[in-house]
């Protein structure tokens, strides 16, 4: 059957796969034939994602990417990859006046540094194949806009934006493509910390021209495009998926 977005025969690593967008990416890519290595911090939720996967030959490795030992353990279990998706990310909405180095470090370490270092280590070990595709889950925040209390989170996503462009140049020698997707607010548990109330989120939804937040699979579909051979000439790009949020 004709399908330019097929992931048949591709081995793909997905971080942050125990919840939210990462879980949807794992599930949807498995349905298109990918063999997956999924990682996340929460054993129970990672197993739940693992059990949902379509097809055979997948693997899951429990890891907190900000812990060196976990990172090394993860790398030791990874085969040669055709695709990498960095979906591990957190936020902690806090007014800038209350930003501390500790808060900055915690969010940067996971959202930015761990993905950069993991890629570097995988390249060094020659675990990223020629013509592979690397996809970062960025955000509208930090690229196009921000939000109250969102300065640190936005900064990590802005940093990813720069990383993507620089990596795309350097890795083009091996024809490895590096791109990001920039979602607006998606229905996940990222605000599970409780700083933002349901009422505030309901109010915020009304600001989207398409009248709602995104669904995790709607981000996964864009990631599928970037992982597939359909995007072989696409590198260094930010794909905006925001229900029209940044138009206004």
């Amino acid at each position, binding site marked *: 059957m004709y399908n330019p977005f097929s992931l048949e025969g591709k081995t793909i690593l997905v971080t942050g796969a125990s919840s939210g967008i990462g879980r949807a990416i794992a599930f949807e890519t498995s349905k298109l034939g990918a063999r997956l290595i999924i990682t996340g911090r929460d054993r129970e939720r990672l197993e739940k994602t693992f059990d949902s996967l379509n097809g055979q030959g997948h693997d899951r490795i429990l890891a907190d990417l900000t812990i060196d030992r976990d990172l090394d353990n993860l790398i030791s279990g990874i085969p040669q990859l055709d695709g990498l998706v960095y979906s591990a990310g957190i936020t902690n909405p806090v*007014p800038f006046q209350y930003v501390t180095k500790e808060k900055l470090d915690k969010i940067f370490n996971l959202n930015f540094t761990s993905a950069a270092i993991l890629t570097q280590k995988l390249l060094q070990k020659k675990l990223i194949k020629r013509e592979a595709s690397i996809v970062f889950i960025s955000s509208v925040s930090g690229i196009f806009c921000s939000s*109250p209390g969102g300065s640190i989170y936005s900064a990590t996503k802005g940093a990813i934006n720069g990383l993507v462009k620089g990596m795309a140049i350097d890795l083009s020698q091996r024809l490895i493509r590096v791109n990001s997707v920039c979602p607006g607010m998606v229905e996940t548990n990222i605000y599970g910390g409780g700083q933002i*109330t349901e*009422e505030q989120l309901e109010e915020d939804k009304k600001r989207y021209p398409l009248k709602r937040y995104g669904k995790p699979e709607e981000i996964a579909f864009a990631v599928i495009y970037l992982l597939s051979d359909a995007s072989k000439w696409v590198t260094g790009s930010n794909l905006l998926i925001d229900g029209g949020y940044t138009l206004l």
Partner: protein
Amino acid sequence: MEPQKFVENFAAQFEESDPSSFSPETKFRDLEDWSSFAALSIIAMVDEIYNIKITGDDIRKSNTVKEIFNIVESKMK
């Protein structure tokens, strides 16, 4: 935790309202400069000064400064 000091810390999150006008009975929701950002600031202040995590829902359910104080105090136990 000293109630008067808490009221002062609470008042410090507001840009317009006169800090001396705050008391435990102040209905913060009725203040001109009440906003969702003020709520975020109060959550951050309580975390930084008292090392206690309160939520947006805790604030939503409360009307007076005293009620927030009570929530913080109950979470300290």
